[in-house]
């Protein structure tokens, strides 16, 4: 115990004396949590709309002003013909073209039907999708409005219609940050746990101090514990800081679920991630190697763990990969507990998976760690 205590004291001293690392531990979480959720936003606004109005009737004017009133669109201008408007798309000054044909009003009134042409610039898939969908929604609304005006309302609907009413659960305002912040926090803890552990141990290899340690009678498990406990503590600290200071004070996210459950999961998760860092360090000899290897994995973890894109919409092979990443489970549990208030019964499979990952990664790392060269 005395040995471990001294090892811990030494580790913390070194961490707090590291002028490059220390600010990173404190500043990085704040900055990442402040910048990323604000920037990574799926809500699409300011869709540039180019209008080609051949009709120039009160109805077409009504339609256009209704579209503009929805708040999602910005009128890039009126154009004489489709070709001219398409030129705007080529210059990237318009995302959508709405073409209203000749006799739009007359046909609608007389013949009860008219077609409208919509062209979408699909280079940015999300923007195109959402823009198109918004516009179609506005058109449908416009359509029913006209029907109301022109059709004699019978006492009962002739054809039965189902009107859809919806309410948003767990995130009623559909605030994208509520979705992002817990996920980013999970990734942050992962990065600190894996990078710092791997780099710390490899640094000892690189500058040769491990050689001096290896000839001492220090036990392997003492050394490993002495290395991992500080980063476990740091991981918990950074997580708490992110959860209570940034996410609560800045974004007003109040964890709905049981905090003990959240921290219990985090504690086990960190064991797995530290094991991952230790594992990298047993295979690498220089800090450069360790950095490259851990960067490679963290990159995959970030993109494949449902942080930005939902796992459900991935192809099945990608789903399989994401199931193999411990980060996937943590991000999911974070969102479940923080936003939904899930209980242990809801996350028990995640818990089993993360215990499995921890045992596997830590066990592999310890078996692979050698005091000899």
């Amino acid at each position: 115990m005395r040995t471990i205590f001294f090892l811990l004291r030494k580790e913390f001293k070194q961490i707090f004396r590291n002028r490059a690392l220390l600010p990173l531990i404190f500043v990085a979480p704040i900055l990442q949590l402040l910048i990323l959720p604000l920037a990574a936003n799926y809500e699409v606004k300011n869709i540039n709309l180019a209008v080609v109005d051949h009709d120039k009737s009160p109805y077409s004017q009504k339609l256009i002003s209704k579209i503009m009133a929805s708040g999602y669109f910005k009128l890039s201008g009126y154009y004489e013909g489709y070709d001219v408007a398409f030129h705007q798309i080529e210059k990237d000054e318009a995302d959508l073209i709405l073409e209203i044909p000749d006799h739009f009003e007359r046909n609608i009134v007389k013949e009860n039907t008219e077609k409208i042409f919509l062209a979408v610039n699909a280079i940015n898939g999300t923007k195109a999708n959402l823009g198109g969908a918004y516009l179609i929604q506005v058109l449908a609304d416009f359509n029913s409005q006209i029907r109301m005006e022109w059709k004699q309302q019978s006492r009962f609907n002739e054809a039965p219609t189902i009107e859809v009413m919806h309410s948003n659960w767990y995130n009623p305002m559909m605030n994208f940050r509520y979705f992002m912040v817990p996920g980013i926090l999970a990734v942050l803890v992962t990065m600190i746990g894996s990078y710092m552990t791997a780099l710390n141990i490899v640094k000892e290899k690189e500058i040769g101090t491990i050689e001096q340690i290896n000839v001492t009678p220090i036990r392997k498990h003492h050394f490993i514990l002495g290395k991992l406990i500080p980063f476990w503590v740091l991981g918990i600290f950074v997580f708490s800081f992110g959860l209570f200071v940034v996410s609560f004070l800045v974004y007003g996210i109040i964890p709905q679920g049981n905090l003990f459950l959240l921290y219990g999961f985090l504690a086990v998760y960190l064991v797995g991630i530290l094991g991952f860092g230790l594992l990298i360090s047993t295979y690498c000899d220089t800090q450069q190697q360790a950095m490259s290897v851990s960067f490679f994995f963290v990159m995959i973890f970030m993109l494949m763990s449902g942080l930005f894109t939902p796992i459900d919409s991935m192809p099945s092979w990608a789903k399989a990969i994401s199931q193999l990443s411990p980060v996937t489970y943590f991000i999911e549990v974070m969102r479940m507990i923080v936003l939904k208030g899930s209980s242990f019964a809801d996350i028990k499979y995640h818990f089993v998976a993360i215990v499995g990952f921890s045992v596997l990664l830590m066990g592999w790392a310890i078996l692979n760690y050698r005091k000899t060269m």
Partner: protein
Amino acid sequence: MNYAVEVENIRKTYTSEIGTTHALQDISFAVNSGELFGLIGPDGAGKTSLFRILTTVLLADGGKATVNGFDVVNKYREIRSCVGYMPGKFSLYQDLTVEENLNFFATLFGTTLEANYELVKDIYIQIEPFKKRRAGKLSGGMKQKLALCCALIHKPAVLFLDEPTTGVDPVSRKEFWEMLKRLKQQGITILVSTPYMDEATLCDRIALIQHGTILSIDTPQKIIASFPHPLYAIKSPEIYRLLKDIHAYENTLSCYAFGEYLHLIFKEENHNDELLHFLTNKNHEQVVLKPIEASIEDCFIELLK
């Protein structure tokens, strides 16, 4: 006889893409208790590999070795508690202070600085004024004294010093060897490796090592005495031309540069005058020729032939 270190047919081979390196080829020797034993050899001779095997951080491919009576493979744990090792590269924590480093290593060995203060006192006094300074900010000589203190902190029975004086100025080197002599008086067996031949005479016994094989083991005096030829030193202002001309001379067995002189061995004795005559014919002036005693380096060169 109780040996402090016993090595029997130790073999170590490194394999890489560029080929196989036989770092140690069936090395055997023994070091007596309380001896100051030197491993003398150029870079790449296998000194560090041997030290790593003896300090149990590297496994040999074959052979047997014991340190302080413990086998390096089965009893590595016992060895780690009773040997001190100072690697060739400074391997202490640069971001910890002198005092913190000492206390840290003392704790790893389950002891304290105070408990063994007597042993390290002589050395520690010299670095004590800087005890609050970080190890990385010490001068080269100070770093070395600190490293030696850390290796001694647990009163080891055997001390391994891997090239402790490489890259150290001559004054510090001299001081360092004096420290080793004092440690020897305290009964610590010391194994020291060095590429400097002039340090060999400071050891009780030395092993000359090259390409993973031991060329000779004996006291420095006996090794020098066993030098088989009379040796001469010769010099002139035009040293390079002199070397070429002596090589051309028919009765030269060998001749090589050695400091400001050339060291010369004749095939047969009593050709001094004839050589001087030969050199005068080649327009050499101010030639100085004198018999000298062989040094360890001469012996090493002789053994390499």
